[in-house]
């Protein structure tokens, strides 16, 4: 269990978080009391059937939403009573999002896309922004595609840009919702290799996925059902995505 006494730094702490939605006269209980801690450097997958509350949970973790009750502490900061603007700033400094459908700005170069979060941080000037963006793109293996526009890239490349964008602000935690959902098997594994590399560098990653296979490549797996945690297991035998990728048949056009 992950609840054991631990000297590692707690990045995320949920205390009995509930999230109810009022739809007409009905109350939809998307999260019915979720508690867990995530430590720095963990690679956590969140799984569960459709409608089990994964996205709702991720929205809480990403400070896009606030709990109906319970408390969420991100990197030492309690979030529940924060204003919209405070949460926007918190997202800007501590969160990196990777979305299923990349969400890049159209007709915009890779560097400019990656710079976006820093545009909303006045501590960065233009030069520092660009340097940070180039560094992030190099980290995802796109150092040679800086000026490519979003519409000139493949799905895998777009998702790498999105990951670079999520990394550029040195976030406390990287949140991915179905980040491989739109990619073919080969490219999905390339992405997994990248996430494992980031994990090894010490990044904290939370990865929502439908694919149970992916849990084998992460360090911990949380399983949701009906808005509650059904299972929370540590994976002691992490598989190498790089090896799995090498074992895959090469794609035709390569």
């Amino acid at each position, binding site marked *: 269990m992950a609840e054991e006494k631990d000297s590692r730094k707690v990045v995320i702490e949920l205390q009995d978080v509930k999230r109810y939605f009022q739809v007409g006269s009905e109350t939809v209980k998307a999260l019915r009391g979720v508690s867990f801690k995530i430590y720095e450097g963990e690679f956590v997958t969140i799984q569960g059937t459709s409608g089990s509350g994964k996205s709702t949970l991720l*929205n809480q973790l*990403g400070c*896009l*939403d606030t709990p109906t009750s319970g408390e969420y502490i991100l990197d030492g900061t309690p979030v529940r009573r924060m204003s*919209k*603007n405070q949460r*926007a*700033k918190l*997202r*800007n*400094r501590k969160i990196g*999002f990777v*979305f299923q459908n990349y*969400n890049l*700005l*159209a*007709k915009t170069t890779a560097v400019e896309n990656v710079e*976006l*979060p820093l*545009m*909303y*941080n*006045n501590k960065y000037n233009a030069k520092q922004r660009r340097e940070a963006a180039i560094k992030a793109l190099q980290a995802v293996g796109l150092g040679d595609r800086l000026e490519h526009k979003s519409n000139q890239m493949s799905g895998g490349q777009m998702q790498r840009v999105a990951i670079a*964008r999520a990394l550029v602000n040195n976030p406390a935690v990287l949140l991915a919702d179905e980040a491989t959902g739109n990619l073919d098997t080969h490219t999905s594994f390339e992405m997994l290799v990248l996430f494992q590399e980031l994990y090894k560098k010490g990044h904290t990653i939370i990865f929502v996925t439908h694919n149970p296979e992916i849990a084998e490549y992460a360090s911990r797996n949380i399983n949701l059902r009906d808005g509650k945690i059904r299972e929370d297991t540590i994976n002691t035998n992490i598989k190498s995505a790089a090896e799995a990728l090498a074992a895959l048949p090469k794609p035709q056009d390569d």
Partner: protein
Amino acid sequence: MNILNLFKVSINAVANNKMRSFLSMLGIIIGVAAVIIMMAIGQGSKESIRKELSTMGTNLLTIRPGADMRGGVRQDPSAMQTLKMADYQRIVAEKKYVTYVSPEVTSGGQVIYGNNNTNTTVYGESPDYLDIKQWVVEEGDCFTEEDVHKAAKVAVVGKTIVTELFNGADPIGKTIRFKSIPMRIIGVLKSKGYNSWGMDQDNVIIAPYTTVMKRINAQTYFSSIVCSAITEELSDAAIEELTQILRENHKLKGEAVDDFTIRSQAEMMETMSTTMDTVTLILVVAAAFSLLVAGIGIMNIMLVSVTERTKEIGLRMAVGATGAVISLQFLIESVVISVTGGLLGILVGFSVSEFVVPMVGMPSSVPAWSIYVSFLVCVVIGILFGYIPAQKAANMDPIEAIRHE
């Protein structure tokens, strides 16, 4: 995000959608151009009328029959026959502040020479008239007091008459006919061209006032008397003097109102200016309404644009944009559209006013302030009509926005 970056983002957004941006600017371009052209024509007409009136002599005084009409009361026709020979003679005899005096009687109609004819106006005047109007006889001579005395059938003609009736040949000594009265041409006026109303100032015939009164019109009164004060500054004294003379002559005592009206050139200019201002104002207001419509057009397009870019807005919010920054981004975008449209409108309006309007023979002069005001108005339109779309963007929920397809 700092303002400079917001401007970059907005300009990129506008540039990435050139056709749509241009279409939303079109209303502003047309509106601003129209306002500037209207103001230029208004200002130009005013200036040219002023110039004209002042070349006619700023010391010019005009006496018209009938009480002051500015109250708008209609007068009976007999009131228009109050200026008589006796008035003229007494003014000539007693004037101190007035230099030149000429009674005026006019008659419009066809003038004939041989097989040629043209429509014109015959002005019956005294020889002083040319001095009052500062007109010059270029060839031949003007008629004399002697001619006036005899109601001589002589005339001084303008250049247009020479072209129309004589095909430019020397007309001196030739006899023309006006309303079956033969008149011998003794002089030709120097050309004055068209005035700002588009009237040909060379299409005139000047004859002794006695000739027009007795032989052509068969009337005993003048349509007006024109005088010149010694100087412009003495105009008021001259008006005083003329009023005195005429009231005495017309036996008006005590409270009785004047049965004539004296206007100085300065007053005429004032009246002209006010009239022009009113006309200009009406035209500018009409043009300004088109700017209102243009603003609504911008709001429309911005609302569509905000909806289309819901996902982008969601993304920006997710990575840390606050509602205020998003709102500012779209507000600036709408200002960029309206100001770009405004600048193009200024360019179009200025070019048309400077080059096209004069080509069709209308006076035009772009007042500098109309350009500054247009620019400011565009900024205001951008902010005003960008506000609702910007609020719509700022109030989006990032979770829903980012999921939007």
